[in-house]
């Protein structure tokens, strides 16, 4: 009996009883999806997450060529002839058109990057109306930001994974999603994708106009950004009137940067009147995996250390006017060896790896408008616009008129010079149905491998990543690009 008593006593002392909560655990550096869309602040947090993701380093820490949308911009520039890669290193394969097939890394990187933006933007778009908030204005503004980001992503995707709009409207574009799903969608046609983009942008413009809020930060899409994107899209769709109108409205309130401002290094949004850009600080910089690491000669990155220097094209250089301040920014000390050091992107003076990143500026809008006006034979205004820009770039006064037959090509040349290194040249080649010609310049055949390509070459198009084809029952090998 005593033993039995012992037994009961002992077990009573030692037996631990666990409460129901014992097995309930929650993370501290993640938050459940239900908690996010309880407030407009929660939804804005998602937008800011996307904006940070657009300039984050991805892959493992040794992967230095995946740093968000500017990595893709660099690839787009390297598809062309205006930027010269001196040594084979990161982005060497992109420069050689060897990073575009279904098992290469680049198409998958671009694909996952933009579709991740789309997923998060969709979550905001689809949840924001149900968020309890007094302020319809805030909700409209948030939805417009998300729509702009979604349109931007689809626009980049469709340009990377298919030829230009014109003449390819019925060819397969990219799959469209406006809702969260785990089922893959088929490739929509190019025109369907552009319809989605233009619809989103019009809606974004409408909502931005309705809310009328000033954006708190250079990175957050605003009315001007939505209009600017609409202008870009219209240019590709060859809707010249819309391009001209939208571009003109988009840069409303933004002055062109002066020659002095142009020479400040493209590293600080407060100095250059950008419309859209990404601010970077030292905490959030991605150092060696960054735009400036790869193109800036003034800080110690892949370019600055000589591992993968990017030169300015000799052919383009020779076409520049000697009084052009942009030409003065190219150092010719090593021209004998084919090296032309561009100092457009120069963070060395006042910044470092925390240099800001440009996404859109009024000069591009001016050039869109000028090109569109020239296309619709409004040569007077086109010429005026070109002069407006050149006056800001040339030391000496510029001639006031250009022969009508050469005005368009002057504007397009101006576009190459002004927007050098901003992620346009490859897309412009596709849009203008031009090939690549790297001969008679300073491209080294050993490094470049591809010295020329015909217009609309399949090499300009990324293939759909193999992992998409493997997991998407609506996209098969037969849907693959050449």
């Amino acid at each position, binding site marked *: 009996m005593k033993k039995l008593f012992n*037994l009961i006593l002992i077990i009573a002392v*030692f037996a631990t009883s666990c409460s129901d909560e014992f*097995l309930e655990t929650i993370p501290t550096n993640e938050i459940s999806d239900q908690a996010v869309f309880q407030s407009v602040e929660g939804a804005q947090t*998602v937008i*800011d997450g996307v904006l940070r993701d657009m300039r984050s380093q991805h892959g493992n820490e040794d992967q230095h060529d995946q740093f968000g949308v500017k990595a893709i911009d660099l690839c787009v520039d390297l598809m062309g002839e205006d930027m010269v890669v001196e040594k084979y290193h990161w982005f060497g394969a992109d420069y050689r058109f060897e990073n575009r097939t279904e098992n290469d890394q680049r198409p998958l990187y671009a694909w996952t990057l933009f579709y991740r933006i789309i997923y998060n933007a969709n979550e905001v778009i689809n949840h924001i109306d149900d968020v309890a908030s007094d302020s319809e204005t805030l909700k409209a503004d948030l939805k417009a930001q998300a729509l702009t980001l979604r349109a931007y992503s689809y626009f980049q995707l469709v340009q990377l994974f298919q030829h230009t709009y014109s003449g390819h409207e019925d060819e397969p574009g990219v799959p469209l999603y406006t809702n969260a799903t785990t089922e893959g969608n088929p490739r929509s046609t190019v025109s369907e994708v552009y319809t989605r983009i233009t619809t989103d942008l019009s809606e974004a413009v409408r909502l931005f106009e309705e809310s009328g809020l000033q954006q708190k930060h250079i990175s957050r899409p605003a009315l001007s950004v939505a209009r600017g994107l609409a202008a870009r899209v219209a240019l590709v769709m060859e809707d010249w009137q819309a391009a001209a109108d939208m571009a003109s409205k988009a840069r409303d309130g933004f002055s062109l940067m002066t020659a002095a401002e142009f020479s400040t290094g493209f590293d600080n949004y407060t100095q250059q009147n950008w419309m859209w850009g990404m601010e970077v600080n030292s905490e959030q910089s991605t150092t060696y995996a960054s735009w400036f690491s790869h193109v800036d000669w003034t800080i110690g990155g892949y370019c600055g250390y000589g591992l993968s220097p990017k030169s300015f094209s000799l052919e383009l250089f020779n076409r520049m006017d000697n009084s052009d301040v942009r030409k003065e920014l190219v150092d010719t000390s090593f021209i004998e060896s084919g090296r032309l050091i561009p100092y457009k992107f120069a963070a060395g003076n006042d910044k470092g790896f925390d240099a800001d990143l440009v996404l859109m500026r009024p000069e591009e809008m001016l050039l869109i408008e000028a090109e569109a006006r020239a296309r619709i034979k409004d040569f007077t205004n086109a010429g005026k616009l070109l002069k407006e820009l050149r006056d800001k770039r040339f030391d000496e006064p510029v001639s006031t008129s250009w022969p009508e037959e050469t005005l368009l090509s002057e504007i397009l040349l101006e576009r190459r010079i002004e927007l050098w290194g901003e992620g346009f040249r490859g897309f412009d080649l596709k849009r203008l149905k031009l090939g690549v010609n790297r001969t008679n310049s300073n491209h080294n055949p050993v490094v470049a491998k591809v010295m020329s390509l015909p217009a609309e070459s399949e090499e300009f198009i990324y293939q759909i990543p193999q992992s998409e084809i493997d997991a998407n029952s609506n996209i098969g090998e037969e849907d693959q690009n050449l």
Partner: protein
Amino acid sequence: MRNIILTFLFVALSISVANAQIKRISGSVTTSGTGVPVSGVSVVVKGTTLGTVTNQDGYYQLNLSGDSPVLVFSYIGMKTRELPVEGSILDVAMIPDNVDVDEVVVVAYGTTVKNQFTGSVSSIDGARLEQFQTANFTKALQGLSAGVLATSGSGQPGEDADIRIRGFSTFGDASPLVVLDGFPYDGSLSALPLSEIESVSILKDASATVLYGSRAANGVIIITTKSGTKGPSKLDLKVSYGISNRAIPDYDKVTVPEYYELQWEGIRNALVAGGTNPDDANSMASQQLISVLGGYNAYNVPAGEVVDENGAINPDAELLWNDSWQDQLFVTGQRKEVTINSSGGTDKTTYFLSGGMLDEGGIISASNLKRFSARANIKTQIRSWINAGINLSGSLSEQNYPVSSGSSYLNSFMFSGLIAPIYPVYLYNEKGEVQTDAEGNKLFDFGTGFDRARAFASNLNPLGTITHDKREYKKDVFTLRSFINFELAEGLSFNASVGADYFAYSGLTHQNMKYGDGQNFNGRSARQTNRMFSYTANQLLRYVTGFGGHSVNAMAGHESYSYKLNTLAATRSGFPFPELVELDAAAIPEKSGSSEDNYRLESYLVKVEYDYDKRFFASFNMRADGNSRFAENARWGSFWGMGLSWIISHEEFLQDFTALNLLRIKASYGEQGNDKVGSYYGYQGLYKTGVNNIDFPGILASRLPTPVLTWESLNSLNMGVEAEFLNRYSINFEYYIRNNSDLLFEKPLPPSTGFTSIDANIAELSNVGFDLELGGLILNAKNVVWNLDLNLGHFKNKIKELPQKSIISGNKLWQEGASIYDFWVEEFAGVDSETGKTLWRYTDADTGEKGVTTSYSKATRYYAGSAIPDLFGGINNTIKIFDFDLSVLLSFGIGGKVMDSGYQWLMHSGQYGYSFHRDILDRWTPENSQAIIPAIDGDSYTNRRSSRFLTDASYFNLKNISLGYNFPEAVISKLNLAGIKLKFTADNLALATARKGLDPQFSLDGSYGKVYVPIRTLSVGVDVQF
């Protein structure tokens, strides 16, 4: 002298037991089976110091007193036997040590006699492990146990090896659960000194591991630390000193003149391929050679004349420098270890105390491990019906761990393995004069001096950086294992135990402000601290009973487990002085963060063991787990296992077969789980925080909700037969079928949905194989005893179900029917004898026809063999010659493939600044058109992944040799000591592989890159017992 003492003792004893009956006993001692007399056998009356030794003829005699005395016969190499005295003659047959008749092994929640266990367990004696000169016991395991695959692990002192038990049971983390003294262990494995380990048990089948429930489907490794035994206090001091160097040499690489000639050829061929006419190409190549290599002219002739227009090195050129990165970067490591321990006990209390110090130097300067450790294990009988024990340990370690893996050029193995021989370690001017600083120290060449830009890893010099950088990890581990046990009634006891682990980690990474990556930031430091605390508390009722040949041993109880991890990390840059490394001094905040994770289990256990007449054995185990990793409705699961065993040799009908010492068959089956799903919050839809946009907080969707996600299941069947015969030989064969289903799989999603995968329990794998252990007493002469043990493992890993038809995982393709480590790569089809271009095979997608192509993007990928060896295991020799003990362990793997990336990188087609393997000398040239190595022409596809770099992974490793010398009794007693042993040990002494420079043991998946190679350690030691 000894005899006088003995005589004195006899007299004293005779007096004290004057009333007891004194009788004389005698007998002879022989070897079982052979009948050879054994001299020098110690014969002691149990519980006393009274005893003698056998003479030349194996004869002994003793005077005895007291009731039913028991004699203990012991001899090196033989099993100790305890026999009751009945009558006046007691002849004894000693059984050689390799035949373990009644070996007791530690298993889940208790111990068992190995021959009676129905499941599968192998046990490694701590004394065997102690012969290895490593800080981490996992590095000793390969070759010691059948069916256990272990990698060689990083050579960095203190690092773990990867362990897999009986195949690869999941696509995720397939490493086994580690249990320390009865409780799952969450500390660092390198915190456990080998000298504190009594034994390591490896539980291999589900019936053995099921008591660990949802955590044990990958097998369990139980570490048991030493404890004291009743008897006089012993004191044991061990001191050892060793030196280490690379166990795996570097690849054979080209020399400086060869390098220049090869690169000349590459430039020239690339120019010709680009359309330049050959004569122009020749002279352009000579002109450009030095500049494309970054201006490094190692010769005393002008840059354009190093290699002439025929591609030959200038015969008048003399080298200005010829530094060896290998010689400069690698050092001889030194290893010093001191341990002291004491153990003993009275009738009521036993203790084991231990302290140790280890200082293990790596083979890169600034790579080492220092560890201080201590343990106290005390057990005591509080009342006749209460006993309790506490086992406390602490270990403080400090590791300096320079970058030694990954593709960072700071990785010394990467850097020295790939850098072209033309680049010097030290800074030389154009005349070849080495540059020095004000104090006369040689300056390092960072690849930028004298208008040069080294084509390889510019602005880096690992030797210059390592000495100024810091990568220092401190790991402090404290463990508690305690119990109190109440004997409540005959056979019924209640046991309450608590086990707790505390693991504090503090890491500092500092990039110096003067050189390398940190230069841009004026130095940068990252600090990380983690605090992990976990505990397990259990309450178990045990009941043992027996009736008429039946005996039952049962246990039931409750257990709860809680794990908590806190982390804090911060990085700052901008240091004012090079001496300062802590964050306070740095001006610029970079990133910082903290987190807490919790993981908990609540469980109920049942264990029943039954035997009949020590012939039939049956067991049944069950555990129910509630697991916090899963959603409420999917949280609870139960796991069970059962086994049967029959000792046939105990049956009447086999009693005449005296040659057969043991024959036993067994079978077991069980079902259990694996909860390692990568996340502690495996079911929730989540957004990750910290994705901030300047000053605005940001989050990003990181996980899709998976409310029905649950653990992986394992069904495991084990069948074994075990025999021992002629007292010399043993064989143990086990066959197993392991089916892993509901495998947690990152089911690929179309990346266009925004996620590349979603977790789901969908895949299925099987591992079918056998383990074979053979033991033999090869030689049993008077002064020479040689035991040989061989263990072999073989298994077939097979994917049985996948969420989609096929999934590419790196260079593997997962498909039903294939294994998880089947290579799927482009097939190398030789070299085009006309052009020297690589040929790859392809299959036309439409026609199915095969052909060859020179376009890599058109090449088809095919299955090209598996990374899994056909056979793996070890051969262990234990030889005793007079007073010497020698043990030799050979581990091996036969079959399987390894992707030799180290070699692949050296077989490029003219990548500037990168060295070449000497095999390149037999490349294609117009004169050598039948070569199987492609021409050098700058084509970056040449050395892309293909079957060309898949290499036979077979290896033989002379893993450990240990020679000990036991000082003879006469010397020891003069010194008033209990024993002295001198030891000489060699780890990783020799390795045979398909290619010099390759380590096929590096990984389980057949990958090999630039990593900290295993180290060879030679050491001497002395072990003094007081």
